[in-house]
């Protein structure tokens, strides 16, 4: 579950995330059931802005303060008979003052055949670290490229015709050591016509479709997402719908 309130001006944007909830469970060994869980909530206040650097470059940056409250319990189902849930699930808090940076090169404006390239550094200096080096099976439930420092690259190309603009692209994710997250890449195709836009994205662990409608006063978007945040260990896709709306003052 996710929510975000944004206030945008011509110069900067302020966004507040009152709640962001991730909850995953995994039950193994049916004879002697063992439950692994990953539970996390996030509150965040973010200020961001962007600048155009000459004709072909743009730069964006943001600073955010967040509180991540998370727990990674691992217990036998029989433990529930002898212990209270709050004894089994112990939450930890992480407070971070973190930064995001983004740099875009508008290759198509520079020379038609060159794609547009964007590089983003997300959650720099975040206090939250992945526990993936630990051998505990519960750490398999921890989602990647969400709370921890990570990097993202996007290649895209705009094809404009009288029937609309088509925008094929690809996103890739990297961990804080710049190692590529295998199988987390996403291929996408966007389409724009006047005040209507749509995107279709697909990758090994993510499928989504978004519909976006703009008017002089209101922008509205509905995005349907099916994803496996936990990658291969997740059996079925979790489904979510995001509703985005922007009201211009």
């Amino acid at each position, binding site marked *: 579950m996710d929510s975000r309130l944004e206030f945008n001006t011509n110069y900067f944007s302020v966004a507040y995330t009152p709640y962001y909830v991730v909850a995953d469970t995994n039950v193994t060994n049916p004879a002697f059931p063992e439950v692994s869980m990953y539970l996390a909530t996030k509150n965040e206040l973010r200020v961001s802005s962007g600048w155009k650097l000459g004709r072909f470059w743009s730069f964006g940056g943001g600073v955010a303060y967040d509180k991540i409250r998370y727990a990674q319990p691992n217990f036998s189902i029989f433990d529930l008979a002898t212990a209270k849930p709050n004894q089994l699930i112990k939450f930890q808090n992480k407070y971070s003052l973190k930064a995001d940076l983004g740099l875009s090169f508008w290759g198509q404006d520079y020379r038609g055949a060159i794609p547009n390239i964007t590089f983003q550094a997300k959650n720099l200096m975040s206090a939250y670290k992945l526990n993936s080096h630990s051998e505990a099976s519960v750490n398999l439930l921890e989602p990647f490229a969400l709370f921890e420092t990570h990097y993202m690259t996007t290649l895209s190309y705009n094809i*404009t*015709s*009288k*029937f*609309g*603009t088509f925008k094929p692209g690809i996103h890739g994710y990297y961990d804080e050591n710049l190692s590529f997250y295998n199988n987390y890449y996403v291929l996408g195709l966007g389409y*724009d*016509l*006047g*005040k*209507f836009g749509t995107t279709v994205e697909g990758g090994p662990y993510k499928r989504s479709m978004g*519909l976006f*409608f*703009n*008017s*002089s*006063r*209101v922008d*509205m978007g*509905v995005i349907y997402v099916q994803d496996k945040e936990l990658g291969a260990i997740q059996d079925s896709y979790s489904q979510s*719908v995001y*509703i985005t*709306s922007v009201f211009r003052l």
Partner: protein
Amino acid sequence: MKLLLISFFFIFSVEADEKFFKEKAIKDQKKYVHTEYEDIISGGIAFVVGNVGFFTTESTPLRAAYSVIQTVGIINISDGIYESYNPSKEKYYYSLFKKYPGYKDKEKNQRYFSKNIIWINAQEEKDRRLSRFYGSTFLATQYVINTLDDRTSSDLKSIYLFLAGVNMIVAGNSWFTRGDYEKHMEDTEKLGLFQIFPIPDGLSVGMSSSF
């Protein structure tokens, strides 16, 4: 020689004004990325998606979101039609210069300009009023149709009925309230003042073929 200079100055001045209106019309002309009908088409897509989404989903937040998309669609269609019929005042002013017959009689000149300037303003007022009337009428109709679906929650029904009522008031007001130029044009038409010079037709006066 003096007469030649005055004529030259007059021609130069008129040409400068004509050029100004032409440049302003080009500058204010909406730059379409794909086609001049893109706002109407994208509004139509929003209207269809909004209705299909609204009447096929059970979730109340999604129904509310799709009804906003219905609204966005109707507003965009209405604005798109208005823009395509009434693109720019400067186009009309430019036409006014281009079609100026150059009467020798001062009174005829005054009547030519006053009549046509009033017509341009009246036409803009009328287009804006009718655009608001049709847009609000369709919105009111859409909100009433949304309330007819049994799956719409009672809270949403109340909101739709309120919005339908507001839009019906706006539509009624737009139908009955005419602006000063529009009223003046209607009154003088009744008096027959404009019969000497034919009132130009809104579509033919446009300068889209001129540049």
